């Protein structure tokens, strides 16, 4: 469904990504792991169309993607809500004529657990609520692919768990394909169908793992422990060779 082929991406003389070929299936949840500086966030920027300075190709259902595309949404590490707009107006941002009745906004606020908070300003939200609003905003364009750049790293552990479950519900409900960057191996094991490990300094994937557990998963799936160790070893190795 989504085909990402990166021949090369560099910052000056420093090669960051490529050659690299990733394919995501419809409805798949994929986590990207890797040492700091392995280009995880850069990869998301490229797929989102924010970074145009790279060589390679992107295809969605066989059609080439160029630049920002409404079928692909990106949720950042910080909520990045516009502080002068209410939550509802943040959701409507950039979609002027859409949703005149506010129905879509109400539905998404309900779905993301923000019912009744549409008229609040971002400063009146907790960290978890703000990140929920950012996810709701990402869904307003009815994307097919949702990219998430460490979306839960800035919230407390309990909120993170609730947001992870919210993400799984949303992914199933909207049949979203999800590509998320995370540093949290447990999170990737809980959420993902597949886990990809990026090498530092470019090159093909260091590792690719299918997560052999049915949903709903337990947060302490004993069967996933060997996989966790395998990924940890790989990350340690990547850190040492970086």
């Amino acid at each position, binding site marked *: 469904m989504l085909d990402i082929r990166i021949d090369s991406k560099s910052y000056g003389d420093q090669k960051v990504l490529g050659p690299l070929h990733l394919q995501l299936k419809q409805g798949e949840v994929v986590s990207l792991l890797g040492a700091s500086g392995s280009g995880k966030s850069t990869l998301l920027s490229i797929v989102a169309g924010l970074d145009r300075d790279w060589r390679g190709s992107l295809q969605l259902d066989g059609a080439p993607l160029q630049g*920002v595309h409404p079928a692909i949404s*990106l949720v950042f590490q910080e909520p*990045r809500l*516009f*502080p002068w707009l209410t939550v509802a107006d943040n959701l409507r941002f950039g979609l002027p004529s859409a949703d005149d009745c506010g129905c879509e906004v109400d539905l998404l606020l309900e779905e993301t657990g923000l019912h009744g908070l549409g008229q609040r300003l971002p*400063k009146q939200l907790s960290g978890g609520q703000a990140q929920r609003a950012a996810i709701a905003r990402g869904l307003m364009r009815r994307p097919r692919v949702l990219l998430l750049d460490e979306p839960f790293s800035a919230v407390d552990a309990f909120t993170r768990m609730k947001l992870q479950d919210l993400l799984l519900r949303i992914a199933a409900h909207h049949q979203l394909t999800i590509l998320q960057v995370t540093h949290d191996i447990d999170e990737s094991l809980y959420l993902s169908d597949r886990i990809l490990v990026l090498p530092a300094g470019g090159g093909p994937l260091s590792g690719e793992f299918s997560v052999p557990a049915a949903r709903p998963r337990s947060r302490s799936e004993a069967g996933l422990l060997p996989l966790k160790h395998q990924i940890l070893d790989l990350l340690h190795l990547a850190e040492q060779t970086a």
Partner: protein
Amino acid sequence: MSDQAAIYLGQGAAHAPPAAGAEPPALRTPIAVLPAPAHRRQLPRWLLGLLLPAALLAAAELAVRSGTLAPNLLPPPSAILETIAELAQRGLATHVAASTLRVAVGFTAGALAAILLGAATALHRPAHAIFDPTVQALRAIPSLAWVPLLLLWLGIDEAPKLVLIAIGAFFPVYMGVSAGIRGVDRKLVEVARLYRLTAAQQARQVLLPAALPSILTGLRNGLGLAWMFMVAAELIAASKGLGYLLSDGRETSRADIVLATILLLAVLGKASDSLMLRLEQRLLAWRDSFESPDHA
């Protein structure tokens, strides 16, 4: 509850205060009794702000009446108030209106020009490269240096006064707009790019609102400078206005008129600044800042 809190010496449960009506055992003899904090009545903020000027005026009044200060150099505040009342009979309102109108027109013109040029230089790199160095050089010129040139070019009518006030207002507003837009968080602009906004939409929906705090600070500073430049303009050539009154007071050795005018300038400047502050608080209610009253 009593209006006192006691600190007890002891261990375990003894740390808790005794139940109501129960006699504290010997071990729980209070070692200190602290008065409960009384709910202090706070003075309104505007009244607090008046305390210092009132004290200074009272001190001046006392100093003159006791003979410590000569009344021809520092007339007592009561005499200054009488002078204001006397001036009010002799067309003070015309002077105040003339000055206020000059400030309003000059400030509006200067601020508008600054907003346009500041936005242009912030949004277009070539415009910044062309205009900004010149603007910064002009900003360094002292206000009075403009006066002879403006008199030469524009005569002694209204035009040089208005232009001088506009120059005064221009630079702080320009700096506020330019620095405000250039300092907008790149992360917010990235969100705007995700929504494929046109450059104009991006400027209107993201850059201007995000730069608004800095723009409003620039406008406030600009308005303050507009009042100062108005006085400079009127001191040199005017037949009415507060600057003219200052000049008149000096020429007739009437320190009371000079001080009355200074007092009026302070009141007018403070009043216009308060209006700007109200506007700022209204437009920036979304800000999650230290002073924000409704921080959740």
